[in-house]
Each structure stands twice: as structure tokens, then as C-alpha cells.
């Protein structure tokens, strides 16, 4: 019996060597959700790690197949619950390509999409930074980051009514224009951000304890990263400047100026630096979006086969009433075909392979969850590291289990 090909159980491991099996999780604070790691250890060092996932499997892909196209968006937004707009943006873009309306999306709607896509990136990195540093014993960072995130959640609440899952983006545009007072709150956030980033960098970047715990830890070579399918900040920290926003631009990203920060070390500290740089680049994009938002315009496509007509027209027009009724009661239909759409979520390349059979429900929504592929690399990273460093490894890969397990 070869040790490398059989599942880890106490019986298997007791057959050879001095190693023992330790089960870490699924209820362990540093596993960031419900991850179980079955570890084969010798003393304090890990010989082999075998992650067990699926504890949060809720069948979102199956559920989505049995909802209208627009209803499916609500469950899809719950996959990566730290970056809801990345999920819905990717899905919405895929459906729009199947419908063939990509070129007719109003400019203002695209700008609002970029706005929330970047806001959600900052918010997601805030949670990552707060919890990651909490794992390493730095308590105060958590409060600074969650304060910043709270401001972003307020903005989400303003447009969608819900803090975590606003479901604001729609096939064909956005659900209504930005509400009154939104831009004032947004300006406050933009002004607050640079100072807050200075604070965060000041707390951690040159902190000797933080550096001791992260420099040279959880190293991932570029070859391994590519082979494991790692994308996003974790890949860029290993030296490859692959960013979906640059490589396959979508929703007007080609019109914004931003850098793709990379490092070559591939360790936990490099991933930390890349994510911090990314937050600053997101702020740079947001500043550019802010000036464009001065220009008013429609936020929803004027196609009554896809988007319900404005509410005020219903009382005046027979056709508007019929279209509204049809859209609400049976949804819109999407021509048959298949498409792969990807966006750069805070964790990497988030992709949807969507198949339509011409009906009013998606036939198949296959997700390419960046967290799943990133987390898988832990099998390559963990061996040879200490158990204490495993916590750093998981934290630096930033998995979200709603997305890993779906």
C-alpha cells in the first residue's frame, strides 16, 4: 500500500514511520470557515496535508438550474460571500453575452459595476487582512480593517437594501441609479482611505513579529502555482502578472489606469504586500470612476424583453404592463448556447461556464471558484512546514468556503 495514494487514516499511517495523524478542524478558528485538514505530522512538522472540504456544500449550482435567470443571481451572489458583486458581475456578464446585448449596456451602468467591483475588492481584502493578522496575534489591525469595511457595507446597503448581498447588478444594467447622498458617503470613504492604508502598513509592514511569521513561509514557486491553477494575488506574488482585468478586459476596464502589482518571492509576506498594493490600485480606479459618475445617464438597457419597463409607464401603456408582467412572472428567455465568462475577483479568476437551452432558466452554471484551486495548493505548500505556519499558509491563500464548497 503506497502512502501517497490512500486517504489518511490512523490505520494507514501507523503502518510506517514515526508519524502520527492529526485532524485540524473543521471547527478551528484559524481555518477561516469549515475546513478540515487531516495532517500527517512528525513532531511539529507536517509531512503531508490532506484538506477535506465540502462541509459547506449547499448545492448552489443545482439550485441555480431550477430558478429563473434573474433569481439564480441571488444564490450565485452567496458563493463568495465576501465579494458578492464579483460573483453577480461575472454571472450577469455571461448571461449578457448569451443574450448578445453586451454592446448595449449603458455607460453609466458599466461605471457603477466597476465601482462596486473595486469596492468589494477592498472590502474583501479588509476581511482577509483583519483575520490573517488576528491569526498571527495582531489584534488591533482587525478593528481598523473592519471599520473600513463597514463604510463599504454602508454603501452596499444604500443601493441594495442589504449589507452583505445587495443583489444590485442586473442583467442589462443595475437596479436603479445611485441613491441621493451616495456620492457624499463615497467621497468621505475615498478621502479616508489613504490615511487608513498608511495606518495598516504602519502596523504590519515593518513589524518584526509579522515579518518573522511570514517572510519565507508558505513559499509557492511559479511553476507550482501555475500547475495548481492558482490565480489572483497568490499567483502574482509568485511572479506572474496575470490579471483578468488586463488579459481579458470586461465592463470597460480597458479604460482605466492601474498597475498589476507583482512580487517574485512567492511567500506569505509577498502575498500580503501584493494585496495591500492591490487595495491602493483599487482606490486609484475608484478615483477615476468618481469623476465619470458626474455624468448622468440611464443605468438599465432599454430592451423590454430583458429588463422590465420603468414602473411609471405601467399605468400609461398597455405594452409596458404586459412586458412587466411577463418579466416578473416567467422571466426572460436566453438563446441557446454556451459561454465562459471570467472576472478578476479578489481571490483570482472567477469564471462561469453557462449553458442555456433557450429557456427561462439556466441549463447549467458551472463555477470556476478561485478559492478551490488556490486552496488545493496547500497540499504542495504544507509539507515541510510547521503546524503553526500552516495557519499562515491558509490565511495567506485567503480561501472563502462559500465558494470552495458551493
Amino acid at each position: 500500500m503506497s502512502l501517497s495514494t490512500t486517504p489518511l487514516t490512523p490505520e494507514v499511517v501507523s503502518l510506517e514511520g514515526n508519524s502520527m495523524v492529526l485532524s485540524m478542524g473543521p471547527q478551528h478558528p484559524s481555518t477561516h470557515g469549515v475546513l478540515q485538514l487531516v495532517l500527517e505530522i512528525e513532531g511539529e512538522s507536517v509531512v503531508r496535508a490532506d484538506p477535506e472540504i465540502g462541509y459547506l456544500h449547499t448545492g448552489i449550482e443545482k439550485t441555480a438550474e431550477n430558478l429563473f435567470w434573474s433569481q439564480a443571481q441571488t444564490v450565485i451572489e452567496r458563493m463568495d460571500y465576501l465579494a458578492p458583486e464579483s460573483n453577480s458581475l461575472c454571472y450577469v456578464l455571461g448571461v449578457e453575452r448569451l443574450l448578445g446585448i453586451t454592446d448595449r449596456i449603458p455607460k453609466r451602468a458599466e461605471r457603477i459595476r466597476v465601482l462596486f467591483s473595486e469596492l468589494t475588492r477592498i472590502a474583501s481584502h479588509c476581511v482577509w487582512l483583519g483575520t490573517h493578522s488576528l491569526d498571527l496575534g495582531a489584534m488591533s489591525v482587525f478593528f481598523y480593517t473592519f471599520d473600513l469595511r463597514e463604510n463599504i457595507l454602508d454603501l452596499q446597503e444604500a443601493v441594495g437594501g442589504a449589507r452583505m448581498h445587495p443583489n444590485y447588478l442586473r442583467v442589462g444594467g443595475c437596479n436603479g441609479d445611485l441613491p441621493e447622498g451616495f456620492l457624499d458617503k463615497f467621497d468621505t470613504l475615498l478621502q479616508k482611505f489613504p490615511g487608513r492604508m498608511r495606518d495598516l502598513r504602519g502596523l504590519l509592514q515593518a513589524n518584526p513579529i509579522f515579518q518573522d511569521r511570514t517572510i519565507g513561509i508558505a513559499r509557492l514557486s511559479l511553476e507550482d502555482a501555475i500547475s495548481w491553477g492558482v490565480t489572483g494575488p497568490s499567483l502574482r506574488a509568485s511572479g506572474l502578472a496575470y490579471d483578468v482585468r488586463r488579459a481579458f478586459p470586461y465592463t470597460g476596464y480597458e479604460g482605466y489606469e492601474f498597475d498589476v502589482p507583482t512580487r517574485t518571492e512567492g511567500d506569505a509576506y509577498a502575498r500580503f504586500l501584493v494585496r495591500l498594493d492591490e487595495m491602493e490600485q483599487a482606490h486609484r480606479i475608484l478615483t477615476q470612476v468618481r469623476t465619470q459618475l458626474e455624468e448622468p445617464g440611464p443605468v438599465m438597457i432599454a430592451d423590454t424583453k430583458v429588463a422590465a419597463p420603468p414602473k411609471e409607464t405601467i399605468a400609461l401603456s398597455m405594452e409596458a404592463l404586459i412586458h412587466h408582467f411577463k418579466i416578473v412572472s416567467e422571466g426572460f428567455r436566453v438563446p441557446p448556447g454556451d459561454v465562459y465568462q471570467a472576472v478578476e475577483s479578489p481571490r483570482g479568476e472567477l469564471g462561469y461556464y453557462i449553458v442555456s437551452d433557450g429557456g427561462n432558466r439556466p441549463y447549467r452554471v458551472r463555477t470556476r471558484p478561485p478559492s478551490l484551486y488556490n486552496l488545493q495548493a496547500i497540499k504542495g505548500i504544507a509539507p515541510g512546514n510547521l503546524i503553526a505556519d500552516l495557519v499562515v499558509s491558509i490565511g495567506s491563500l485567503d480561501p472563502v468556503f462559500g465558494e470552495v464548497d458551493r
Partner: protein
Amino acid sequence: MPSTQTPPLAGAAVDPPSLRPPIEDAAIERVEPAQLHARLEALHGEGWTMLLDLGAADYPQRTPRFDVVYHLLKLPSQPRSAEQLGAPQRMRVLCGVDAADPHLPTVSDLWKAADWAEREVYDLFGILFDGHPDLRRIQMPHTWEGYPLRKDYPLRGPARERSPRPAFALKSNVQAGTPPSGETLAALQEQEKERERDT
């Protein structure tokens, strides 16, 4: 127990991907299972170094029934900046799998990323990958029966058995004039007896 919630298959799509010319710039290729491994190995050698995704779809009215879908990414070697990266390319490889013999060769020897992706396809569609080092369920519990993402998989479990009326039902909960029956009646009679015993 069979469920009443099995979705109807009569009107299901035969083969949606073939109904329309591709609407994206990615190259799309369809490969027979026998040639799959050799073709993907050749692509891997040509610079398609990243397996972006490996998924599947079920078309019950079609032969072969399943499509296993590979998305590949071509990357130039060792670029350090986004400008050097140029324009990477994507590619989709589809491979039909027959329901009677759902076997495919593994590609986890070419891309490590295929490990969990193949386990997931096995778990949710029941497609077996020959040569995979550790093919077991990943999302569903290890004791699970059936493959949930197949189109003929029931949407709900068997109907729950009706729970018995609570034995603590009080007289006031029963509508006036309705004669109590079954367990409720028994419970009420029990209550009466207890009260008599106490007094």
C-alpha cells in the same frame, strides 16, 4: 425511496452548445475520449500551461450523454509585468462521455489542478477518471448515493413522514365543536385521568 420531485426530462435540451456558433474568441475543440489524453498532453507541451477549469454538463437526451469541459490558458513563460504578458489565450476542450461507460483518462499527471476538479466531477456526475491518484467524493458525504448534478437526480428528498400530533395538545387548541380523534384524544383522556388522580 423514490421521490415525486424527479424533474421531467421530456422537453430537456438535446445539445445546446451545438445550436449556435461560438460567441467568444476562445478556441473550441471537441475531442474523442480515446484521443483526450494525447491531445491535452500535446496542448500542455505547446504552452497551455494552466488548466483553468474542469467541469461537466449533463444532456440526458443526447448520446454521448455527458460533456466534460476543460478550459485552458496559454501563458508565455516567465513574464514579469502585465505588459510583457501580452494577450494570453483561452481554449475550451469538450469531450463527450457515454453514460453506459463513464470513463475518462485523468489529466492530473499534466496539471495538478485537475486533482480536486476531477474528484468533483466524479462526485456530482459519476464520471470516473482512470489513473486518478485519489478518486473519492469531495463535496458530498462519503456515504452518499447518486450523483446530484445529473439532470435526473431528484430535487428533493423523500417526503417526510408526518409527525404525530403533540401529546400535550390542550383542549383550547382544538377548535370548538371538533371531536378530538386519534392521539389527541388519547392524550386528552390521559390528561383527564391525571387530573382525577390528583384530586
